[in-house]
Protein backbone atom coordinates (compact mmCIF):
# COMPACT_ATOMS: atom_id res chain seq x y z
CA UNK A 1 0.00 0.00 0.00
CA UNK A 2 2.91 2.29 0.51
CA UNK A 3 3.99 2.32 -3.18
CA UNK A 4 2.62 4.94 -5.53
CA UNK A 5 -0.95 4.26 -6.59
CA UNK A 6 -1.38 2.94 -10.10
CA UNK A 7 -4.19 5.33 -10.77
CA UNK A 8 -4.07 9.02 -9.99
CA UNK A 9 -6.60 10.94 -7.97
CA UNK A 10 -7.85 12.84 -11.02
CA UNK A 11 -8.49 9.69 -12.93
CA UNK A 12 -10.25 8.22 -10.00
CA UNK A 13 -12.48 11.29 -9.63
CA UNK A 14 -13.27 11.06 -13.32
CA UNK A 15 -14.26 7.42 -12.91
CA UNK A 16 -16.39 8.30 -9.91
CA UNK A 17 -18.27 10.88 -11.94
CA UNK A 18 -19.00 8.16 -14.46
CA UNK A 19 -20.43 5.91 -11.81
CA UNK A 20 -17.41 3.69 -11.18
CA UNK A 21 -16.20 3.67 -7.61
CA UNK A 22 -12.69 2.44 -7.13
CA UNK A 23 -11.53 2.01 -3.63
CA UNK A 24 -9.15 0.14 -1.46
CA UNK A 25 -9.73 -1.43 1.87
CA UNK A 26 -7.67 1.28 3.49
CA UNK A 27 -9.68 4.00 1.89
CA UNK A 28 -13.05 2.67 2.82
CA UNK A 29 -11.87 1.89 6.33
CA UNK A 30 -10.62 5.44 6.81
CA UNK A 31 -13.71 6.88 5.20
CA UNK A 32 -15.86 5.05 7.68
CA UNK A 33 -13.74 6.07 10.61
CA UNK A 34 -13.54 9.70 9.64
CA UNK A 35 -17.27 10.14 9.19
CA UNK A 36 -18.37 8.68 12.47
CA UNK A 37 -16.18 10.47 14.95
CA UNK A 38 -18.30 10.46 18.05
CA UNK A 39 -17.16 13.05 20.55
CA UNK A 40 -17.28 12.65 24.28
CA UNK A 41 -19.80 14.88 25.97
CA UNK A 42 -17.22 16.66 27.99
CA UNK A 43 -17.15 20.39 28.56
CA UNK A 44 -14.69 22.24 30.69
CA UNK A 45 -15.20 25.97 30.38
CA UNK A 46 -16.13 28.77 28.03
CA UNK A 47 -15.26 26.82 24.90
CA UNK A 48 -17.78 24.16 25.87
CA UNK A 49 -20.52 26.69 25.24
CA UNK A 50 -19.24 27.22 21.72
CA UNK A 51 -19.02 23.46 21.37
CA UNK A 52 -22.69 23.24 22.32
CA UNK A 53 -23.41 26.02 19.86
CA UNK A 54 -21.66 23.96 17.19
CA UNK A 55 -23.98 21.06 17.90
CA UNK A 56 -27.09 23.22 17.76
CA UNK A 57 -29.13 23.96 14.73
CA UNK A 58 -27.17 26.79 13.25
CA UNK A 59 -23.84 25.05 12.84
CA UNK A 60 -25.04 21.49 13.14
CA UNK A 61 -22.07 19.25 13.69
CA UNK A 62 -24.31 16.34 12.62
CA UNK A 63 -23.43 17.16 9.04
CA UNK A 64 -20.00 15.72 9.80
CA UNK A 65 -21.24 12.59 11.49
CA UNK A 66 -20.14 13.81 14.87
CA UNK A 67 -23.39 14.71 16.53
CA UNK A 68 -23.59 11.68 18.77
CA UNK A 69 -22.14 13.13 21.96
CA UNK A 70 -21.53 10.16 24.16
CA UNK A 71 -21.63 10.64 27.91
CA UNK A 72 -19.50 7.56 28.45
CA UNK A 73 -15.84 7.59 27.42
CA UNK A 74 -16.10 3.95 26.45
CA UNK A 75 -18.33 4.85 23.53
CA UNK A 76 -16.52 7.93 22.35
CA UNK A 77 -13.82 8.38 19.73
CA UNK A 78 -12.97 12.02 20.15
CA UNK A 79 -12.06 14.00 23.21
CA UNK A 80 -12.67 17.70 22.65
CA UNK A 81 -10.79 19.39 25.46
CA UNK A 82 -12.93 22.47 25.43
CA UNK A 83 -11.61 24.89 27.99
CA UNK A 84 -9.08 25.47 30.70
CA UNK A 85 -7.61 22.33 32.17
CA UNK A 86 -6.71 23.11 35.73
CA UNK A 87 -4.21 21.08 37.67
CA UNK A 88 -7.02 19.82 39.82
CA UNK A 89 -8.86 18.60 36.73
CA UNK A 90 -5.88 17.22 34.81
CA UNK A 91 -5.80 13.75 36.43
CA UNK A 92 -9.46 13.28 35.61
CA UNK A 93 -8.93 14.30 31.99
CA UNK A 94 -6.08 11.82 31.63
CA UNK A 95 -8.15 9.15 33.27
CA UNK A 96 -11.02 9.79 30.87
CA UNK A 97 -8.59 9.65 27.97
CA UNK A 98 -7.29 6.32 29.21
CA UNK A 99 -10.83 5.00 29.47
CA UNK A 100 -11.61 5.80 25.85
CA UNK A 101 -11.12 2.92 23.51
CA UNK A 102 -8.79 3.14 20.55
CA UNK A 103 -8.98 4.51 17.91
CA UNK A 104 -9.33 7.83 19.68
CA UNK A 105 -8.45 11.38 18.85
CA UNK A 106 -8.03 14.56 20.82
CA UNK A 107 -8.82 18.11 19.81
CA UNK A 108 -7.52 20.88 22.03
CA UNK A 109 -10.13 23.54 21.56
CA UNK A 110 -9.28 27.06 22.57
CA UNK A 111 -6.25 28.83 23.89
CA UNK A 112 -6.55 27.44 27.39
CA UNK A 113 -6.54 23.81 26.34
CA UNK A 114 -3.57 24.38 24.06
CA UNK A 115 -1.28 26.32 26.32
CA UNK A 116 -3.18 27.60 29.33
CA UNK A 117 -4.04 30.61 27.21
CA UNK A 118 -4.82 33.83 29.00
CA UNK A 119 -4.75 31.97 32.29
CA UNK A 120 -1.37 30.34 31.73
CA UNK A 121 0.34 32.35 34.46
CA UNK A 122 -2.08 30.97 37.04
CA UNK A 123 -0.81 28.60 39.69
CA UNK A 124 -3.58 26.07 39.17
CA UNK A 125 -3.69 26.11 35.38
CA UNK A 126 -2.10 23.38 33.33
CA UNK A 127 -0.10 24.94 30.51
CA UNK A 128 -1.55 22.81 27.80
CA UNK A 129 -3.23 19.44 27.89
CA UNK A 130 -0.50 18.07 25.61
CA UNK A 131 1.67 17.77 28.69
CA UNK A 132 -0.24 14.61 29.49
CA UNK A 133 -2.13 13.34 26.47
CA UNK A 134 -1.35 13.45 22.75
CA UNK A 135 -3.31 16.08 20.85
CA UNK A 136 -4.17 15.72 17.18
CA UNK A 137 -5.56 19.14 16.34
CA UNK A 138 -5.07 22.46 18.08
CA UNK A 139 -7.74 25.09 17.49
CA UNK A 140 -6.67 28.49 18.79
CA UNK A 141 -9.11 31.23 19.66
CA UNK A 142 -10.64 32.39 22.86
CA UNK A 143 -13.11 30.85 22.35
CA UNK A 144 -12.92 29.63 18.73
CA UNK A 145 -16.06 30.22 16.73
CA UNK A 146 -18.20 27.13 16.17
CA UNK A 147 -17.05 27.23 12.56
CA UNK A 148 -13.47 27.06 13.75
CA UNK A 149 -14.34 23.90 15.64
CA UNK A 150 -15.94 22.48 12.52
CA UNK A 151 -12.83 23.44 10.59
CA UNK A 152 -10.72 21.62 13.14
CA UNK A 153 -12.98 18.61 12.83
CA UNK A 154 -12.59 18.65 9.05
CA UNK A 155 -8.83 18.75 9.49
CA UNK A 156 -9.06 15.82 11.83
CA UNK A 157 -11.08 13.92 9.25
CA UNK A 158 -8.44 14.69 6.65
CA UNK A 159 -5.81 13.44 9.02
CA UNK A 160 -7.71 10.21 9.59
CA UNK A 161 -8.23 9.73 5.87
CA UNK A 162 -4.53 10.11 5.15
CA UNK A 163 -3.48 7.48 7.67
CA UNK A 164 -2.00 4.23 6.44
CA UNK A 165 -2.99 1.01 8.01
CA UNK A 166 0.49 -0.47 7.95
CA UNK A 167 3.96 0.82 8.38
CA UNK A 168 5.56 3.17 10.82
CA UNK A 169 2.87 5.86 10.54
CA UNK A 170 -0.02 3.51 11.22
CA UNK A 171 -2.52 4.71 13.79
CA UNK A 172 -1.92 3.77 17.39
CA UNK A 173 -4.56 1.11 17.61
CA UNK A 174 -3.08 -0.93 14.79
CA UNK A 175 0.37 -1.07 16.28
CA UNK A 176 1.71 -3.31 18.96
CA UNK A 177 4.65 -1.22 19.99
CA UNK A 178 2.75 1.76 21.35
CA UNK A 179 1.25 1.83 24.78
CA UNK A 180 -2.08 3.58 24.76
CA UNK A 181 -2.28 4.07 28.50
CA UNK A 182 -0.86 7.35 29.71
CA UNK A 183 0.27 7.84 33.30
CA UNK A 184 -2.15 9.77 35.45
CA UNK A 185 -0.50 12.54 37.47
CA UNK A 186 -1.06 12.72 41.18
CA UNK A 187 -1.69 15.66 43.43
CA UNK A 188 1.51 16.81 45.08
CA UNK A 189 2.19 19.30 47.80
CA UNK A 190 2.91 22.16 45.42
CA UNK A 191 2.16 20.89 41.93
CA UNK A 192 1.12 17.83 40.04
CA UNK A 193 3.51 14.89 40.33
CA UNK A 194 4.89 14.64 37.71
CA UNK A 195 4.12 18.10 36.27
CA UNK A 196 4.29 16.70 32.72
CA UNK A 197 4.73 13.48 30.83
CA UNK A 198 8.34 13.77 29.64
CA UNK A 199 7.87 11.11 26.95
CA UNK A 200 5.11 13.11 25.39
CA UNK A 201 5.82 16.73 25.95
CA UNK A 202 9.03 17.90 24.35
CA UNK A 203 8.88 21.59 23.57
CA UNK A 204 11.68 22.96 21.44
CA UNK A 205 13.92 25.38 23.21
CA UNK A 206 13.49 28.91 22.06
CA UNK A 207 16.02 31.22 23.64
CA UNK A 208 14.90 34.76 24.04
CA UNK A 209 17.51 37.36 24.92
CA UNK A 210 17.23 40.01 27.57
CA UNK A 211 15.20 42.95 26.49
CA UNK A 212 17.34 45.96 25.73
Amino acid at each position, binding site marked *: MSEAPAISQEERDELRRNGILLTSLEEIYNWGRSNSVWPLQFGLACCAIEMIAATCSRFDIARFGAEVFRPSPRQADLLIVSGTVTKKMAPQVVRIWNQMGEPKYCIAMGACAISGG*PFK*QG*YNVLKGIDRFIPVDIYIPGCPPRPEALLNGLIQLQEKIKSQHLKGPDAPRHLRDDVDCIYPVPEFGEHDLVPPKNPNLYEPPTLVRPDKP
Partner: protein
Amino acid sequence: MQNEPTSSAPGLAGTPANSSFDILHSPLGSPQQGASVREVNDPFHGDLLEVSMGPHHPSTHGVFRMVATLDGEIIVKLKPVFGYLHRNHEKLGENTTYLASMPYTDRLDYLAGMTNNWAYALAVEKLSGQVATERAEYVRVIVGEMMRIVNHCCLVGFLFNDLGTSFTPLLYAFREREKFLDLFEELTGTRMMYNYQRFGGCRVDPTPEWLAKAKALIDGFPRFLDEYEQFLTGNEIMLARTQGVGRLSPELAINAGITGPVLRATGVGYDIRKVDGYGVYPRFDFRVPIGDHGDTYDRYMMRILEMRESVKILQQAFRDLPAGPIIDPKAKNRGLRPKAGEAYGRIEGPKGEIGFYLISDGSTNPYRYRVRPPSFINLTVLEDMCLGHSVADAVVILGSIDIVLGEVDR
Protein backbone atom coordinates in the same frame (compact mmCIF):
# COMPACT_ATOMS: atom_id res chain seq x y z
CA MET B 1 -47.14 32.71 41.34
CA GLN B 2 -47.26 36.35 42.21
CA ASN B 3 -45.81 39.14 40.27
CA GLU B 4 -45.34 41.96 42.67
CA PRO B 5 -43.46 45.19 42.68
CA THR B 6 -40.65 45.38 45.19
CA SER B 7 -42.34 48.15 47.12
CA SER B 8 -44.43 45.53 48.82
CA ALA B 9 -42.99 43.95 51.92
CA PRO B 10 -40.92 40.89 51.23
CA GLY B 11 -42.85 37.78 51.91
CA LEU B 12 -41.28 35.93 54.76
CA ALA B 13 -43.94 33.30 55.10
CA GLY B 14 -43.50 29.63 54.50
CA THR B 15 -41.81 26.93 56.46
CA PRO B 16 -38.24 25.97 55.81
CA ALA B 17 -37.91 23.18 53.35
CA ASN B 18 -35.88 21.21 55.81
CA SER B 19 -37.62 21.95 59.02
CA SER B 20 -34.93 20.39 61.17
CA PHE B 21 -32.72 23.30 60.22
CA ASP B 22 -34.06 26.44 61.79
CA ILE B 23 -31.66 29.31 61.59
CA LEU B 24 -33.77 31.61 63.72
CA HIS B 25 -33.79 29.35 66.72
CA SER B 26 -30.22 28.28 66.48
CA PRO B 27 -28.21 31.48 66.67
CA LEU B 28 -25.05 29.59 65.93
CA GLY B 29 -26.80 27.33 63.47
CA SER B 30 -24.56 25.19 61.38
CA PRO B 31 -25.37 23.53 58.09
CA GLN B 32 -27.52 20.53 58.51
CA GLN B 33 -25.45 17.39 58.66
CA GLY B 34 -27.52 14.82 56.84
CA ALA B 35 -30.51 13.29 58.54
CA SER B 36 -31.48 9.80 57.63
CA VAL B 37 -34.91 9.56 56.13
CA ARG B 38 -35.70 6.04 57.16
CA GLU B 39 -35.96 4.68 60.65
CA VAL B 40 -32.68 3.28 61.82
CA ASN B 41 -34.24 0.09 63.16
CA ASP B 42 -35.69 -0.75 59.78
CA PRO B 43 -34.79 -4.43 59.28
CA PHE B 44 -34.09 -3.74 55.60
CA HIS B 45 -31.86 -0.81 56.37
CA GLY B 46 -28.84 -1.27 54.22
CA ASP B 47 -25.57 0.58 54.21
CA LEU B 48 -25.30 4.13 53.03
CA LEU B 49 -23.74 4.50 49.63
CA GLU B 50 -21.41 7.33 48.72
CA VAL B 51 -21.62 8.39 45.10
CA SER B 52 -19.32 10.86 43.45
CA MET B 53 -21.09 12.77 40.69
CA GLY B 54 -18.70 14.64 38.48
CA PRO B 55 -16.43 16.40 37.73
CA HIS B 56 -16.93 14.98 34.27
CA HIS B 57 -20.60 15.53 34.44
CA PRO B 58 -22.93 14.30 31.76
CA SER B 59 -25.29 17.16 32.50
CA THR B 60 -24.25 20.49 31.19
CA HIS B 61 -22.92 22.47 34.10
CA GLY B 62 -19.23 22.10 33.68
CA VAL B 63 -16.75 20.50 35.95
CA PHE B 64 -18.68 20.40 39.19
CA ARG B 65 -18.60 17.50 41.57
CA MET B 66 -21.08 16.42 44.20
CA VAL B 67 -20.28 13.75 46.73
CA ALA B 68 -23.70 12.41 47.62
CA THR B 69 -24.41 9.93 50.38
CA LEU B 70 -27.41 7.86 49.48
CA ASP B 71 -29.83 5.84 51.47
CA GLY B 72 -31.39 3.79 48.75
CA GLU B 73 -32.03 6.47 46.20
CA ILE B 74 -32.55 9.24 48.73
CA ILE B 75 -29.85 11.79 49.37
CA VAL B 76 -28.95 12.03 53.04
CA LYS B 77 -25.81 14.08 52.65
CA LEU B 78 -24.35 16.01 49.76
CA LYS B 79 -21.06 17.82 49.69
CA PRO B 80 -20.17 19.89 46.68
CA VAL B 81 -16.52 19.81 45.62
CA PHE B 82 -15.17 22.83 43.82
CA GLY B 83 -11.98 23.94 42.20
CA TYR B 84 -11.95 22.00 38.94
CA LEU B 85 -12.06 25.25 37.06
CA HIS B 86 -10.13 27.39 39.52
CA ARG B 87 -8.26 29.54 37.02
CA ASN B 88 -6.74 31.95 39.50
CA HIS B 89 -8.74 34.87 38.24
CA GLU B 90 -8.11 36.89 41.38
CA LYS B 91 -4.36 36.34 41.38
CA LEU B 92 -4.17 37.32 37.71
CA GLY B 93 -6.25 40.39 38.47
CA GLU B 94 -3.71 41.46 41.04
CA ASN B 95 -0.89 41.04 38.55
CA THR B 96 -2.38 43.03 35.69
CA THR B 97 -3.54 46.57 35.25
CA TYR B 98 -7.10 47.67 35.85
CA LEU B 99 -7.89 47.77 32.16
CA ALA B 100 -6.25 44.43 31.41
CA SER B 101 -8.57 42.71 33.87
CA MET B 102 -11.58 43.74 31.82
CA PRO B 103 -11.28 40.96 29.20
CA TYR B 104 -10.75 38.44 31.98
CA THR B 105 -14.06 39.35 33.58
CA ASP B 106 -15.81 38.10 30.43
CA ARG B 107 -14.51 34.67 31.24
CA LEU B 108 -15.99 34.57 34.73
CA ASP B 109 -19.57 33.88 33.88
CA TYR B 110 -19.09 33.04 30.26
CA LEU B 111 -22.77 32.88 29.49
CA ALA B 112 -23.20 36.49 30.53
CA GLY B 113 -20.00 38.36 29.86
CA MET B 114 -21.59 41.74 29.54
CA THR B 115 -22.90 41.93 33.08
CA ASN B 116 -19.51 40.91 34.45
CA ASN B 117 -17.98 43.74 32.47
CA TRP B 118 -20.55 46.06 33.89
CA ALA B 119 -19.99 45.05 37.51
CA TYR B 120 -16.25 45.46 37.13
CA ALA B 121 -16.57 48.82 35.40
CA LEU B 122 -18.92 49.95 38.16
CA ALA B 123 -16.51 48.89 40.89
CA VAL B 124 -13.56 50.63 39.26
CA GLU B 125 -15.66 53.73 38.70
CA LYS B 126 -16.46 53.72 42.39
CA LEU B 127 -12.84 53.19 43.26
CA SER B 128 -11.51 55.93 41.03
CA GLY B 129 -14.39 58.37 41.28
CA GLN B 130 -15.33 58.29 37.61
CA VAL B 131 -18.83 58.55 36.26
CA ALA B 132 -20.16 56.99 33.08
CA THR B 133 -21.95 59.19 30.58
CA GLU B 134 -25.69 59.06 30.37
CA ARG B 135 -25.78 57.45 26.96
CA ALA B 136 -23.32 54.85 28.15
CA GLU B 137 -25.54 54.05 31.11
CA TYR B 138 -28.46 53.47 28.76
CA VAL B 139 -26.36 51.33 26.48
CA ARG B 140 -25.22 49.35 29.49
CA VAL B 141 -28.82 48.73 30.41
CA ILE B 142 -29.55 47.65 26.85
CA VAL B 143 -26.69 45.20 26.58
CA GLY B 144 -27.08 44.07 30.18
CA GLU B 145 -30.74 43.23 29.84
CA MET B 146 -30.14 41.52 26.51
CA MET B 147 -27.50 39.48 28.27
CA ARG B 148 -29.98 38.58 30.98
CA ILE B 149 -32.42 37.34 28.36
CA VAL B 150 -29.72 35.25 26.70
CA ASN B 151 -28.66 33.79 30.02
CA HIS B 152 -32.15 32.92 31.20
CA CYS B 153 -33.07 31.54 27.81
CA CYS B 154 -30.10 29.18 27.88
CA LEU B 155 -30.63 28.31 31.51
CA VAL B 156 -34.13 27.10 30.74
CA GLY B 157 -32.68 24.97 27.98
CA PHE B 158 -30.04 23.51 30.28
CA LEU B 159 -32.58 22.94 33.02
CA PHE B 160 -34.67 20.85 30.66
CA ASN B 161 -31.57 18.97 29.64
CA ASP B 162 -31.20 18.03 33.27
CA LEU B 163 -34.81 16.94 33.31
CA GLY B 164 -33.95 14.48 30.60
CA THR B 165 -35.29 16.13 27.47
CA SER B 166 -31.99 15.49 25.77
CA PHE B 167 -31.32 18.70 23.95
CA THR B 168 -34.60 19.66 22.30
CA PRO B 169 -35.45 22.79 24.35
CA LEU B 170 -31.80 23.74 24.22
CA LEU B 171 -32.00 23.81 20.43
CA TYR B 172 -34.76 26.40 20.67
CA ALA B 173 -32.80 28.39 23.27
CA PHE B 174 -29.64 28.36 21.22
CA ARG B 175 -31.47 29.26 18.03
CA GLU B 176 -32.69 32.37 19.81
CA ARG B 177 -29.35 32.98 21.48
CA GLU B 178 -27.61 33.04 18.11
CA LYS B 179 -29.73 36.03 17.11
CA PHE B 180 -28.59 37.92 20.18
CA LEU B 181 -25.01 36.83 19.70
CA ASP B 182 -25.09 38.16 16.15
CA LEU B 183 -26.04 41.53 17.55
CA PHE B 184 -23.36 41.40 20.20
CA GLU B 185 -20.86 40.38 17.59
CA GLU B 186 -21.80 43.27 15.40
CA LEU B 187 -21.44 45.67 18.29
CA THR B 188 -18.41 44.37 20.12
CA GLY B 189 -16.65 42.05 17.73
CA THR B 190 -17.04 38.67 19.40
CA ARG B 191 -19.77 36.25 20.25
CA MET B 192 -18.98 35.68 23.90
CA MET B 193 -15.99 37.64 25.16
CA TYR B 194 -17.03 41.20 24.67
CA ASN B 195 -14.51 43.37 26.53
CA TYR B 196 -17.03 46.09 25.85
CA GLN B 197 -17.37 48.26 28.93
CA ARG B 198 -14.85 50.83 29.93
CA PHE B 199 -14.41 52.93 33.03
CA GLY B 200 -16.55 55.95 32.31
CA GLY B 201 -18.53 54.49 29.43
CA CYS B 202 -18.46 51.86 26.74
CA ARG B 203 -15.95 51.10 24.04
CA VAL B 204 -18.04 51.57 20.91
CA ASP B 205 -21.18 53.49 20.25
CA PRO B 206 -24.03 51.45 18.82
CA THR B 207 -25.06 52.72 15.42
CA PRO B 208 -28.68 53.61 14.67
CA GLU B 209 -28.89 50.56 12.42
CA TRP B 210 -27.73 48.35 15.25
CA LEU B 211 -30.28 49.87 17.60
CA ALA B 212 -33.03 49.35 15.03
CA LYS B 213 -32.05 45.71 14.60
CA ALA B 214 -31.90 45.17 18.34
CA LYS B 215 -35.27 46.80 18.80
CA ALA B 216 -36.81 44.61 16.14
CA LEU B 217 -35.38 41.54 17.81
CA ILE B 218 -36.67 42.56 21.21
CA ASP B 219 -40.09 43.42 19.84
CA GLY B 220 -40.34 39.95 18.37
CA PHE B 221 -38.99 38.22 21.44
CA PRO B 222 -42.26 37.90 23.41
CA ARG B 223 -43.64 35.91 20.50
CA PHE B 224 -40.80 33.44 20.86
CA LEU B 225 -41.30 33.42 24.61
CA ASP B 226 -44.97 32.54 24.18
CA GLU B 227 -44.02 29.67 21.94
CA TYR B 228 -41.33 28.59 24.36
CA GLU B 229 -43.77 28.63 27.24
CA GLN B 230 -46.39 26.75 25.28
CA PHE B 231 -43.69 24.25 24.53
CA LEU B 232 -42.48 23.81 28.10
CA THR B 233 -44.45 25.36 30.92
CA GLY B 234 -47.54 23.19 30.84
CA ASN B 235 -45.67 19.96 30.39
CA GLU B 236 -46.96 17.56 33.01
CA ILE B 237 -43.69 15.72 33.34
CA MET B 238 -41.93 18.97 34.01
CA LEU B 239 -44.54 19.96 36.60
CA ALA B 240 -44.23 16.64 38.35
CA ARG B 241 -40.48 16.81 38.39
CA THR B 242 -40.16 20.41 39.58
CA GLN B 243 -43.09 21.35 41.78
CA GLY B 244 -42.22 20.88 45.41
CA VAL B 245 -38.71 19.77 44.54
CA GLY B 246 -35.81 21.54 46.19
CA ARG B 247 -37.74 23.91 48.38
CA LEU B 248 -35.83 26.73 49.97
CA SER B 249 -37.11 28.81 52.84
CA PRO B 250 -36.75 32.59 52.68
CA GLU B 251 -35.06 32.72 56.09
CA LEU B 252 -32.37 30.29 55.04
CA ALA B 253 -32.04 31.97 51.67
CA ILE B 254 -31.36 35.35 53.25
CA ASN B 255 -29.00 33.95 55.83
CA ALA B 256 -27.06 32.00 53.24
CA GLY B 257 -26.62 35.06 51.06
CA ILE B 258 -28.61 33.69 48.16
CA THR B 259 -29.28 36.30 45.50
CA GLY B 260 -30.91 36.61 42.14
CA PRO B 261 -33.81 34.54 40.86
CA VAL B 262 -33.13 31.78 43.39
CA LEU B 263 -33.73 34.24 46.23
CA ARG B 264 -36.75 35.85 44.65
CA ALA B 265 -38.34 32.47 44.03
CA THR B 266 -38.57 32.11 47.81
CA GLY B 267 -40.62 35.29 48.04
CA VAL B 268 -37.99 37.83 49.05
CA GLY B 269 -38.25 40.89 46.86
CA TYR B 270 -34.62 41.88 46.78
CA ASP B 271 -33.38 43.07 43.43
CA ILE B 272 -30.27 45.24 43.36
CA ARG B 273 -31.62 47.06 40.32
CA LYS B 274 -34.32 48.38 42.62
CA VAL B 275 -32.41 48.49 45.92
CA ASP B 276 -29.22 50.18 44.77
CA GLY B 277 -30.74 51.82 41.75
CA TYR B 278 -27.38 51.81 39.99
CA GLY B 279 -27.03 53.25 36.54
CA VAL B 280 -30.30 54.55 35.17
CA TYR B 281 -32.50 51.76 36.48
CA PRO B 282 -34.65 54.06 38.65
CA ARG B 283 -35.92 55.65 35.44
CA PHE B 284 -37.45 52.45 34.15
CA ASP B 285 -40.81 51.09 35.03
CA PHE B 286 -40.51 47.38 35.66
CA ARG B 287 -41.63 44.85 38.20
CA VAL B 288 -39.67 42.26 40.07
CA PRO B 289 -41.23 38.81 39.87
CA ILE B 290 -41.49 37.03 43.19
CA GLY B 291 -42.29 33.39 43.78
CA ASP B 292 -43.82 31.93 46.88
CA HIS B 293 -42.79 28.31 47.22
CA GLY B 294 -39.10 28.52 46.58
CA ASP B 295 -39.12 25.27 44.65
CA THR B 296 -37.60 24.40 41.32
CA TYR B 297 -40.74 25.30 39.45
CA ASP B 298 -40.72 28.80 40.95
CA ARG B 299 -37.11 29.22 40.01
CA TYR B 300 -37.97 28.21 36.47
CA MET B 301 -40.87 30.69 36.37
CA MET B 302 -38.65 33.46 37.76
CA ARG B 303 -36.49 33.16 34.66
CA ILE B 304 -39.43 33.27 32.29
CA LEU B 305 -40.99 36.27 34.04
CA GLU B 306 -37.70 38.11 34.28
CA MET B 307 -37.23 37.73 30.56
CA ARG B 308 -40.60 39.39 30.05
CA GLU B 309 -39.65 42.22 32.40
CA SER B 310 -36.32 42.62 30.62
CA VAL B 311 -38.19 43.07 27.37
CA LYS B 312 -40.14 45.89 29.01
CA ILE B 313 -36.97 47.56 30.27
CA LEU B 314 -35.37 47.24 26.87
CA GLN B 315 -38.30 48.81 25.09
CA GLN B 316 -38.13 51.80 27.43
CA ALA B 317 -34.38 52.02 27.02
CA PHE B 318 -34.63 52.04 23.22
CA ARG B 319 -37.26 54.73 23.47
CA ASP B 320 -35.36 56.98 25.87
CA LEU B 321 -31.78 56.46 24.71
CA PRO B 322 -30.25 59.94 24.78
CA ALA B 323 -27.64 61.30 22.40
CA GLY B 324 -24.22 62.19 23.64
CA PRO B 325 -20.78 60.71 24.03
CA ILE B 326 -20.55 57.01 24.73
CA ILE B 327 -17.54 57.47 26.93
CA ASP B 328 -16.50 60.35 29.10
CA PRO B 329 -13.74 62.10 27.10
CA LYS B 330 -11.79 62.64 30.30
CA ALA B 331 -12.19 59.02 31.38
CA LYS B 332 -9.00 57.36 32.45
CA ASN B 333 -8.64 53.74 31.39
CA ARG B 334 -5.10 52.95 30.40
CA GLY B 335 -2.55 53.55 33.11
CA LEU B 336 -5.29 54.15 35.63
CA ARG B 337 -3.89 54.70 39.11
CA PRO B 338 -6.74 55.17 41.53
CA LYS B 339 -6.05 56.82 44.85
CA ALA B 340 -5.37 54.43 47.69
CA GLY B 341 -8.62 53.14 49.04
CA GLU B 342 -11.12 50.41 48.44
CA ALA B 343 -14.52 49.98 46.88
CA TYR B 344 -17.14 47.29 46.56
CA GLY B 345 -19.38 47.61 43.53
CA ARG B 346 -22.20 45.24 42.77
CA ILE B 347 -24.93 44.79 40.21
CA GLU B 348 -27.80 42.42 39.69
CA GLY B 349 -26.39 39.90 37.29
CA PRO B 350 -28.52 37.22 35.69
CA LYS B 351 -27.43 34.77 38.37
CA GLY B 352 -27.54 37.11 41.33
CA GLU B 353 -25.41 39.75 42.92
CA ILE B 354 -22.12 39.95 41.11
CA GLY B 355 -19.73 42.25 42.90
CA PHE B 356 -16.13 43.30 42.69
CA TYR B 357 -14.15 44.29 45.74
CA LEU B 358 -11.05 46.24 44.87
CA ILE B 359 -8.31 47.62 47.06
CA SER B 360 -5.99 50.13 45.48
CA ASP B 361 -2.60 51.05 46.84
CA GLY B 362 -2.15 53.81 44.31
CA SER B 363 -0.33 51.73 41.71
CA THR B 364 -1.47 50.56 38.28
CA ASN B 365 -2.49 47.12 39.54
CA PRO B 366 -5.14 46.47 42.15
CA TYR B 367 -3.71 45.42 45.49
CA ARG B 368 -6.63 43.11 46.06
CA TYR B 369 -9.05 42.05 43.38
CA ARG B 370 -11.95 40.00 44.58
CA VAL B 371 -14.97 38.74 42.73
CA ARG B 372 -18.16 38.08 44.64
CA PRO B 373 -19.48 35.19 42.59
CA PRO B 374 -23.25 34.74 42.82
CA SER B 375 -23.42 31.15 41.68
CA PHE B 376 -20.69 30.09 44.11
CA ILE B 377 -22.57 31.48 47.08
CA ASN B 378 -25.90 30.22 45.78
CA LEU B 379 -24.46 26.73 45.97
CA THR B 380 -24.24 27.07 49.76
CA VAL B 381 -27.78 25.78 50.08
CA LEU B 382 -27.47 23.01 47.51
CA GLU B 383 -27.24 20.39 50.23
CA ASP B 384 -30.22 21.79 52.12
CA MET B 385 -32.33 21.75 48.99
CA CYS B 386 -31.33 18.24 47.95
CA LEU B 387 -31.77 16.41 51.24
CA GLY B 388 -34.60 13.92 51.10
CA HIS B 389 -34.81 13.99 47.33
CA SER B 390 -33.62 11.39 44.90
CA VAL B 391 -30.45 11.57 42.85
CA ALA B 392 -32.31 12.53 39.70
CA ASP B 393 -33.83 15.48 41.54
CA ALA B 394 -30.43 16.66 42.72
CA VAL B 395 -29.43 17.15 39.09
CA VAL B 396 -32.55 19.20 38.45
CA ILE B 397 -32.05 21.28 41.59
CA LEU B 398 -28.48 21.98 40.58
CA GLY B 399 -29.72 23.00 37.17
CA SER B 400 -32.27 25.36 38.63
CA ILE B 401 -29.66 27.24 40.67
CA ASP B 402 -28.00 28.26 37.42
CA ILE B 403 -24.31 27.91 38.03
CA VAL B 404 -21.48 28.60 35.69
CA LEU B 405 -18.26 27.06 36.79
CA GLY B 406 -16.08 29.84 35.50
CA GLU B 407 -17.67 31.98 38.15
CA VAL B 408 -17.99 29.36 40.89
CA ASP B 409 -14.30 28.52 40.87
CA ARG B 410 -12.94 31.63 39.23
